């Protein structure tokens, strides 16, 4: 009747890293986010001037805003990519292997953030070439990229967890997340403007950071509850 001592559980950090690594490997093999969604985003950026008429000053003005709108809309698709779906059987295994649900969500969020950063990096040159936007104050954008990626990654993780196992997953997910990304969009577009007109871009950065932080805390707090809904 003496059960052998179970293997010591590895640290949460180690588990999170392992989970994120698995997500990235799967994504690499499927190549959905970078090899396909990113070009799709680029095509969208290309279509817009065709739809609205290609007037150079107008496009210069639209450029940055369009970039962020596309990053958000397609970024949501990246976070909801097919390769990030666990089937019921895989989910059962994860639930039974002693990983705290918060760690699982954190691993997913890290993988999402990495992919989104890459996605932003791919689209940035496209918008610069096609729209020739004004770039004064660009150093202020450097912190914006990771902050927006992190926020979107967190919100996408949450939506994915909420829509887990539903037939309407890919469609309900965006609906839940996109409206909440609004502050990200506003912050991202306002930072360079603020920098240009000498008002305080740091405040906008702070706002994005606060949102990221709030969502992260909220996810951490509710992770256990999300878990049990299988």
């Amino acid at each position, binding site marked *: 009747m003496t059960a052998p001592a179970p293997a010591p559980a590895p640290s949460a950090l180690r588990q999170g890293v392992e989970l994120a690594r698995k997500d990235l490997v799967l994504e690499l093999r499927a190549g959905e986010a970078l090899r396909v969604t990113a070009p799709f985003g680029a095509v969208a950026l290309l279509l817009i001037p065709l739809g609205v008429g290609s007037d150079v000053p107008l496009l210069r003005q639209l450029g940055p805003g369009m970039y962020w709108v596309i990053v958000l809309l397609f970024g949501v698709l990246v976070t909801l990519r097919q390769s990030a779906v666990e089937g019921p059987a895989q989910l059962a295994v994860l639930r039974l292997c002693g990983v705290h649900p918060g760690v699982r969500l954190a691993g997913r969020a890290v993988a999402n953030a990495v992919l989104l950063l890459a996605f932003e990096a791919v689209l940035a040159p496209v918008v610069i070439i096609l729209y020739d936007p004004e770039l004064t104050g660009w150093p202020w954008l450097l912190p914006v990229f990771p902050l927006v990626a992190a926020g979107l990654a967190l919100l996408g993780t949450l939506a994915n967890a909420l*829509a887990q196992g*539903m037939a309407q997953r890919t469609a309900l997910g965006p*609906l839940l997340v996109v409206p909440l990304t609004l502050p990200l969009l*506003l912050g991202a577009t306002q930072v360079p403007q603020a920098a240009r007109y000498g008002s305080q871009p740091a405040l906008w950065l702070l706002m994005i950071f606060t949102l990221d932080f709030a*969502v992260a805390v909220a996810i951490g707090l*509710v992770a256990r509850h*999300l878990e049990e*809904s299988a």
Partner: protein
Amino acid sequence: MTLFGRRLPIATALVTAIAIAAATLAPPDQLQGELQRLMYVHVPTAWVAYLSFAVTLAASVAWLWRRTPRFDRIAASSAEAGVFFTGLAIALGSVWGKPTWGVWWTWDPRVVTTAVMFFVYVGYLALRQATPDPLARARRSAVFGVVAFVQVPIVHMSVVWWRALHQPPTVLKPGAPTIDGRMLTALLISVLAFSLFYLVVLRARVRLAVRTEEVEAALAERDQEPAGNAVLAPQWEKKGLRADV
């Protein structure tokens, strides 16, 4: 369940009557004239929408903590009421916007964030609708009910963060309200009337939810047979199939 019983609708009717009287008696605005009286319906609907979503937040937290079905019902009912009042605030706002701003709709931050808030909670209701299992539904919507509330402070702060057309806060802000005393009184009475109306709606909706659940439970009780019951053994004899080869 009998929160103030019959007294609540009576009180609501009474306060509504007073509110209408106060709104008619309050002085017209110097700039906008009689049109400004729309404020007494527009502003309360917006605030009551906030109130509804706050109740959803509180009930969601309470559900996560206690797991009592009652909190789930309150959260859902209040979100429905909130979506209704948000829609009403938008509708009244655009009715007000047409004569003052010249358009039904503008890209004013408050107006847009309000619309987004509407969508966030429509998403909340869609999430509920898409989850048939009661426990999973309560759990998921409670989680989302907490997260969704971020949108409310964003709507409120939007006018401060982005200078724009829409009125900045005159009442709900630090410091004394910058508004005529009589107008403020009329507004506050109207807010009270709308809040009471919200309570009536919420109570009715929660009761309806209870009734629905009772009916469903009764149906389930009657149909206690496990799902697998209906599976029979194959009847190949019918078609002249032989099992022995």
